[in-house]
């Protein structure tokens, strides 16, 4: 028990009591509390256990830099591990649990790690766990993984909703402290569209709860309120509270997350939990403030040790005393405000410990008039306690020689407020590419040169005095507006008064680590969250991990969930000391987004789960679904695989469908084929250049199968192109390559032949397509088409004619993928459903079956037609037996490289037909081998690409790619080896066309 609620003060609403639980225990707090403040108010000091040593940890800060007080918030699908108690706004019914402890927070068995501590130094795991066997690591790893990690993730899906949106503005101001407010005012007054984002629930930054300082004669808090009111009244300014700008990307694109409903138990109906904003703006003002730094000494991680300004914030904002007896340890003036304000609030300040020998007299006066014990030229050398701080050890210090005296004194205290100075929050500036620059005055890094359009202002830039923050903010806001094209008037001067104990900014005495000249050498933590100690830093140096980036990776300094917000500068200062180099020589590690961790759900938004990718539906989609088809994904499309009847499995269904096509008539939805309108006076010449076969002789009203090659000579795509008019063609492509082919054609027209008068436009969506195939297809179609003679004379093979089917205008093309007499009937997509239904109805008389992609495959495999599995990006036309379609008479895309020797060697894998010799089904993905047994299969000679049972020849057949091709291999006894699924079956190699080799069936 140490912290408690002060009788008065703070911004909390004491009339609104809120109940919550921590580790199952019930507590109360007030509206305006954070989880951390509410627990402190209840005297809780132990919040969690540390990462490696499982040491007890309390609250260390009052903000997003918190390294220690991590809890798992909420439960079940909503549970959020590793949540900083310091940024959780209290709500009624809040539930939180401590983490990384077993069986409970008070008595954690793994705290035994502290005993092994001397061995568990940085990188110890690289040096051991390598035996006794090679595989032993897998066992060690199992336990190491269990011990590592912090919180546990939920196993349930998150029920909440996340939104994403885009935001455009002229000036984005990040941070609504004095600098940010001044910037937003200046930019807003100039007329710019301004967005002011701050991660906190309330704007004000460091001024939140501030009473004593005044700006333009107003108490700071009132100035904030007045500024906000003015901003709210400006039409083009938006203020975004609870919004963290987490990432600064190229070209002034920034990512931000608004916590819309995290301060409620659950979001309202239709309300997002969080909203991700992608902000694009002309210029940015970074007014992100600064984070206080710890000082490293023995026991500096004890619950009760915390940042001095955070202790003050708890008092001013939530009316909380962080302890009953507080020692303040500081190397700069700022913590005097903590001491004085806490004292004024009635908290006992046991002492102020300051390494500096000398203080400004107003500061000294302010302390002395309050009767606070002031120990200048002293340092804290240690903190003691178990689950809570009990005593603080101090010793004299000589600031000139930087030596710690031997005499020691123990002061009883339950709270130790520490300030080692301030670290500007330069994350976004650094992400944006500005290399941080060292500022000796504040002994920290400030933003470097801006490579994008941003400017920093306020504490973020190292200006710690309020007056400077305000004027720099106003200046930055005005300049940012100017960059966005808004001239501004004069920037205002601010009149600021500060209390005497505010001290002056520039008198920091750099002090990174305190070492006892004698006595116990306990653990001194640099990175609290990752349990990285000062000794670890020196170990890294000793082993040669001297670069800061090595230091980081070897010790994991700064790699925890807080990304070293409170530890990085201390870490590099210690490394600099160990190397006897300056801090800027050592440099910083690289800053990366996000500034604070971002929920994956927020980045995903609504475009996840089923909405990961839109579904593309053919005009007949609903009819297929109604007919009970099994729908399969094909890229974004959904296509019927089979139309199963009751009792059928997929095999039965496709065999029935394919058989019906060969025996009678079937129809299949081919709307997914890519379709491109190719028009213009030069369309013919264009096609002749992009296809490997000739297109000069294609007559109007006829279609031709064409092959397209890639520049490297491999096959790209195939399809038929229909000449609909003198200068108008309809090109079809495979479903998979539709987009690629269009881009390819557009590229050629733009870059290679800009003089050609050709337009290409995707009309895939314009046409519904149905292939009607089978001996009865003519009769069926003729029964519904009156204005076109479908006889061989009327519509010859490869003929294309317009017609009407009932009231539907259609294009009828006599094409056959199945090898049967067949037609493709195209109609405008909005007619697609009606067309399908009309054909189904008329088809009843012909026993028409609708068939799916499976039977489509059967039919084309029987005919040896290639498709996706054969056009796999490595095959050439010659490989697939289509060498005859590569013209020798003209220049076309891909020809020169197709002719390279390696692409024409006889032993390349080439298309063959394969028949199962023993009646065992063949499986795609099997390999063809010579070895007779599964045990000794020998080397792969090729693979089976497409398989089916062939109703036409009553055999299991396949297409395959085989070294040398079919004629070379036709007498060889090969095996289809499928070790994965346990098959090794003899096959016969044949020509890839299994059925109706002379094509007589489709020419009737």
């Amino acid at each position, binding site marked *: 028990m140490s912290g408690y609620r002060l009788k008065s003060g703070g911004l909390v609403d004491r009339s609104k009591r809120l109940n919550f639980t921590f580790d199952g225990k019930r507590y109360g707090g007030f509206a305006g509390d954070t989880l951390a403040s509410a627990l402190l108010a209840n005297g809780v000091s132990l919040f969690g256990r540390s990462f490696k040593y499982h040491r007890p940890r309390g609250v260390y800060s009052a903000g997003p830099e918190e390294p220690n007080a991590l809890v798992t918030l909420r439960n079940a699908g909503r549970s959020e591990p590793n949540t900083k108690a310091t940024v959780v706004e209290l709500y009624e019914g809040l539930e939180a649990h401590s983490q990384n402890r077993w069986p409970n927070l008070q008595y954690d068995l793994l705290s035994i790690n502290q005993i092994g501590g001397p061995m568990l130094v940085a990188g110890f795991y690289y040096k051991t766990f390598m035996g006794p066997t090679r595989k032993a690591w897998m066992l060690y790893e199992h336990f190491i993984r269990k011990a590592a990690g912090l919180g546990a993730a939920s196993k349930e899906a998150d029920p909440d909703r996340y939104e994403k949106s885009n935001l455009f503005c002229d000036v984005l101001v990040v941070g609504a402290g004095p600098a940010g407010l001044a910037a937003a005012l200046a930019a807003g007054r100039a007329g710019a569209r301004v967005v002011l984002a701050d991660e906190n629930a309330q704007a004000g930054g460091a001024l939140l709860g501030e009473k004593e300082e005044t700006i333009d004669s107003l108490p700071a808090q009132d100035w904030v309120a007045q500024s906000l009111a003015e901003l709210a009244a400006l039409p083009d300014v938006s203020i975004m509270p609870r919004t963290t700008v987490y990432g600064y990307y190229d070209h002034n694109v920034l990512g931000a997350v608004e916590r819309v409903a995290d301060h409620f138990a659950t979001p309202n109906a239709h309300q997002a939990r969080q909203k991700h904003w*992608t902000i694009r703006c002309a210029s940015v003002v970074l007014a992100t403030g600064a984070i206080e730094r710890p000082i490293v000494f023995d026991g500096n991680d004890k619950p009760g040790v915390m940042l001095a300004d955070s202790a003050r914030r708890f008092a001013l904002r939530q009316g909380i005393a962080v302890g009953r007896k507080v020692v303040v340890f500081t190397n700069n003036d700022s913590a005097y405000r903590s001491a004085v304000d806490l004292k004024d609030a009635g908290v006992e300040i046991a002492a102020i410990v300051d390494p500096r020998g000398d203080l400004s007299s107003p500061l000294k006066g302010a302390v002395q008039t309050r009767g606070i014990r002031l120990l200048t030229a002293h340092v804290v050398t240690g903190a003691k306690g178990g689950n809570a701080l009990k005593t603080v050890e101090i010793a004299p210090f000589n600031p000139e020689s930087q030596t710690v005296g031997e005499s020691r004194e123990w002061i009883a205290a339950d709270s130790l407020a520490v300030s080692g100075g301030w670290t500007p929050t330069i994350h976004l500036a650094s992400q944006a590419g500005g290399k941080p620059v060292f500022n000796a005055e504040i002994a920290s890094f400030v933003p470097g040169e801006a490579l994008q359009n941003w400017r920093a202002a306020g504490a973020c830039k190292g200006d710690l005095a309020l007056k400077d923050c305000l004027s720099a903010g106003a200046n930055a806001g005005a300049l940012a507006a100017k960059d966005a094209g808004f001239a501004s008037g004069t920037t205002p001067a601010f009149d600021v008064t500060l209390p005497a104990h505010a001290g002056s900014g520039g008198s920091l005495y750099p002090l990174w680590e305190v070492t006892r000249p004698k006595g116990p050498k306990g653990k001194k933590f640099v990175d609290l969250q990752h349990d990285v100690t000062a000794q670890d830093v020196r170990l890294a140096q000793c082993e040669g991990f001297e670069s800061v980036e090595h230091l980081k*990776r070897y010790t994991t300094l700064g790699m925890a969930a807080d990304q070293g917000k409170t530890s990085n500068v201390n870490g590099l200062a210690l490394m600099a000391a160990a190397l006897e180099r300056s801090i800027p020589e050592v440099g910083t590690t690289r800053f990366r987004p996000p500034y604070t961790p971002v929920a994956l759900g927020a980045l995903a938004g609504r475009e996840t789960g089923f909405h990961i990718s839109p579904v593309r539906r053919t005009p007949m989609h609903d009819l297929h679904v109604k007919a009970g088809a099994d729908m399969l994904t094909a890229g974004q499309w959904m296509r019927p695989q089979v139309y199963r009847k009751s009792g059928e499995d997929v095999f039965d269904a496709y065999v029935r469908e394919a058989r019906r096509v060969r025996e009678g008539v079937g129809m299949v939805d081919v709307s997914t084929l890519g379709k491109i309108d190719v028009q213009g006076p030069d369309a013919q010449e264009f096609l002749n250049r992009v296809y490997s076969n000739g297109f000069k002789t294609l007559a109007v009203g006829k279609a031709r199968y064409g092959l397209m090659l890639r520049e490297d000579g491999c096959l790209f795509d195939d399809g038929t192109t229909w000449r609909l008019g003198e200068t108008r063609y309809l090109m079809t492509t495979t479903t998979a390559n539709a987009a690629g082919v269009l881009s390819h054609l557009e590229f050629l027209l733009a870059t290679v032949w800009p003089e050609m008068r050709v337009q290409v436009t995707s009309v895939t969506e314009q046409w519904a397509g149905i292939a009607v195939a089978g001996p009865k297809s003519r009769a069926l179609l003729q029964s519904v088409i009156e204005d076109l003679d479908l006889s061989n004379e009327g519509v010859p093979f490869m003929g294309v004619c317009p017609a009407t089917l009932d009231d539907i205008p259609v294009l009828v093309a006599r094409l056959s993928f199945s090898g049967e007499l067949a037609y493709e009937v195209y109609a405008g997509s909005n007619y697609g459903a009606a067309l399908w239904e009309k054909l189904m109805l008329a088809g009843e008389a012909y026993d028409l079956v609708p068939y799916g992609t499976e039977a489509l495959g059967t039919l084309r495999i029987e005919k040896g037609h290639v498709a996706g599995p054969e056009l796999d990006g490595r095959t050439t036309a010659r490989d697939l037996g289509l060498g005859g379609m590569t013209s020798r008479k003209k220049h076309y895309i891909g020809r020169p490289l197709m002719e390279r020797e390696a692409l024409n060697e006889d032993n390349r894998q080439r298309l063959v037909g394969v028949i199962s010799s023993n009646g065992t089904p063949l499986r*795609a993905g099997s390999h063809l081998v010579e070895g007779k047994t599964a045990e000794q299969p020998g080397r792969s000679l090729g693979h089976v690409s497409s398989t089916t049972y062939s109703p036409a020849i009553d055999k299991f057949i396949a297409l395959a790619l085989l070294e040398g091709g079919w004629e070379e291999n036709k007498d060889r006894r090969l095996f289809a080896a499928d070790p994965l699924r346990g098959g090794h079956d003899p096959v016969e190699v044949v020509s890839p066309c299994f059925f109706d080799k002379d094509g007589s069936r489709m020419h009737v």
Partner: protein
Amino acid sequence: MGHYSVFSLVKNAMTGHRNWQRAWRSPDPKPKYDVIIVGGGGHGLATAYYLAKEHGITNVAVIEKGWLGGGNVGRNTTIVRSNYMLPANTRFYEWSMKLWEGLSQDLNYNVMFSSRGVLNLAHTPAQIDAYARRGNSMRLQGVDAELLDRDQVARMVPGLDVSEAARFPVIGGLCQPRGGTARHDAVAWGYARGASDRGVDIIEQCETTGFLFDDQGRVSGVKTTRGDIRAAKVGVAVAGNTSNVLRTAGVERLPIESHVLQAFVSEPLKPLIDTVVTFGAGHLYISQSDKGGLVFGGDIDGYNSYAQRGNLPIVEHVAAMAVAMFPNLSRLRLLRHWGGIMDMSMDGSPIITTGPLEGLYLNAGWCYGGFKATPASGWCFAWTIAKDQPHALNADFTLERFHQGRTIDERGAGPQPRLH
């Protein structure tokens, strides 16, 4: 160099860890070496290590422009596998896998090679066919592979959305049980330590700015920011920076483009995902580091870049895929994301070869798969440098293959680096 073991740890703990030696020495460059390796990434260091270990060539310098391991070896998603389809790749990566399996012991440095299995999910029958083709190819070459059905996948990866209502329902997968992950930095450090211990000079903060040539026009050393250094042979293993380094040797063009690939890590969590899971259709791969962070990645950003940082579209896409696959990840937080510059070759496969100039040797084109190759790449490159001819394992990884039409195109994407 002291031997690492639990005993060395205890001993040093008693003396306050003040007596450890440097993991690798930090010498000034000598004027001349037998071999210079440019690039202190995984491949360069492994090459130096195997030159010393396998070929007895110890008068070697590894030259690194920044800090050792700061390139892709230090920024990759650590997936190790040999589940390749094309024989040239399968046998090479399988050799790498074998080296991984004994690497910690070989180096006396725990690289935490964790063979926790690599699973590629399949969503359509066509994908199953393609995986079967690949898996069978592996099996026929003696590599482990298993084809799993949906239930097996569900058992292996709890939390994965295997429902049929998913946009791309999982119907199975190809698993390589021996595949897994390794601790990326440890690989660089372990090889560095091993090489240094065998006499190799590792020279950090030393950038090559050009090459030295002898009278016959043979490469005879490098110009660096720390002066000229001579050597009979110069091997280049600089991953994403290959084009620039070779340009300074007068090689203007290569079948390589540099692209940025991003990677992501979440806050640390108790064990959640025990396997490496890849979702090819959605470009996502995910695993959990021993420290507890979910490490994941996606597709390259899709444009040439040397910036080592990517942009939001991929960040958002990868998060969306992760949450779609694992709906329980939604409230977990992204901790950090970064990028690396990859040497994307025109067919997606690497180059390990003598040349393209006399006295020069090239190791490049690793795309986003070169971490797993580190041991075999170093091993083969060392062989190639030592014997002036490729080992059978890298004989196909030539520079001429592109012009010859003998590309090794696992994806079948053709000469478009961004698609490999």
